[in-house]
């Protein structure tokens, strides 16, 4: 490993003082649960590391003005233990609980999960269905918010510029009474990387699907919203045809590949199956 400079700001003012001085080619890290294994596999080592895991501002989970704000350095363990998340957004807690092992979850952060942009990132489909915004700050101090739906550009390519740091995420607090589920298929039940994952949020009354948000991971180069499924389901009554239509529609949304974890064919089957099961349970 070549020479690397390490920056660990302990306060927000130390962090903002650093901005503008970070060398070109710096990389932001927090839990390092993705970064170190990748470096060990031979990924190019950055010139400098910016460790944001000690910044209180980035470790907060709070609700303000009808929106939930989650700092980039919030860990999976924080999410699945947060009363606010459990009560108002349990689908995110279940995604956090499915990620890695308890050991990984103690260090792995939501910012890293999204920044790394793995197609199988478990928090990505959930944040997509919540219509979350990604909050960014650049090395020259400029901030901007990008909808997560336009954040993932291609396999492990995101809207984030090289000099930009994810500071957190925000989304409108889900209304009470909605039905939601995170589903994940892995090769085993513990500490598995998703072969397919899915988040569903449904606003339904009696037998009618008023509104629906569906997103999938690990079945395309990027985690994505299943827009065809949403179009097929919105405003429709729940029946067998509803399920058939949605499961057909999902095939147009996804473009899975075969890899060591599963074949493209299997992913198409399993994506339709977890969707059908979720819809059936939502209207049960």
């Amino acid at each position, binding site marked *: *490993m070549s*020479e*690397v*400079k*390490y920056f*660990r700001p302990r306060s927000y003012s130390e962090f903002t003082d650093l901005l503008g001085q970070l060398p070109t080619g710096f990389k932001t*890290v927090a839990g*390092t*649960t993705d970064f*170190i*294994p990748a470096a*060990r596999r031979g990924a190019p*080592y950055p010139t400098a*590391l910016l*460790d944001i*895991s*000690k910044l209180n501002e980035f470790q907060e989970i709070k609700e303000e003005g009808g929106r939930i704000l989650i700092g980039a350095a919030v860990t999976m*363990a924080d999410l699945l233990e947060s009363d606010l998340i459990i009560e108002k957004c349990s689908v995110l807690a279940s995604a956090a609980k499915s990620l*890695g*092992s*308890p*050991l*990984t979850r*103690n*260090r792995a952060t939501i910012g890293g999960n999204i920044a790394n942009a793995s197609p199988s990132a478990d928090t990505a489909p959930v944040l997509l269905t919540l219509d979350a915004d990604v909050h960014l700050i650049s090395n020259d101090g400029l901030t901007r918010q990008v909808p997560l739906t336009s954040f993932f550009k291609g396999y492990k390519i995101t809207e984030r510029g090289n000099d930009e740091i994810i500071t957190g995420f925000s989304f409108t607090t889900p209304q009470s009474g909605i039905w939601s589920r995170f589903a994940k298929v892995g090769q085993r039940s*513990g*500490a598995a990387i998703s072969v397919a994952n899915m988040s569903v949020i449904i606003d339904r009354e009696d037998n009618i699907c008023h509104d629906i948000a569906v997103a999938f991971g690990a079945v395309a180069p990027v985690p994505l919203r299943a827009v065809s499924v949403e179009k097929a389901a919105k405003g429709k009554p729940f029946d067998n045809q509803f399920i058939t239509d949605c499961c057909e529609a999902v095939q147009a949304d996804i473009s899975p590949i075969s890899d060591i974890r599963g074949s493209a064919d299997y992913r198409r089957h399993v994506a339709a199956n977890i969707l059908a099961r979720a819809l059936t349970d939502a209207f049960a």
Partner: protein
Amino acid sequence: MNKQHITLNINREEYDVVVTDNELLSNVIHDTLGLTGTKYGCGTGECGACTVLVNGDPVLACITLVTAVAGAEIITIEGVAPAPGKLDPIQDAFLEQAAVQCGFCTPGMILVAKDLLVRNPHPTEEEIRETIRGNICRCTGYTSIIRAIQQAADPTICCQSKP
């Protein structure tokens, strides 16, 4: 190589060490400080052999930068026992239940069990299984490990299982 001087608090003792900026916690604990109970297994955070407690939470030392935990309270397997020559009840239970074979996973298993029993003194079997999900054992088949953690939580189990 960029070197710096940091202070680590390990097993309630302060260690002044010189580290490179990208050095791993597992290297410093095992190689620099010679606390060889912390094992280096997969190196990618899959096996749990390098588990240490950082501010009470089990963490994988092989994928943690040492600079990131400067100032934190770190406990390794060497620091679990209450006093020299004594064992923690979890260590006793691992011996009683023969939950140690090759021993490579044992430090990690005991440390995640320690964290569990601090948070939840009477875990169910399911909670124990969930806790050790990130720790791989290739010898025991896990049954004796689970029984040992159950015994540590409730010593009466020990007497029941003895012939």
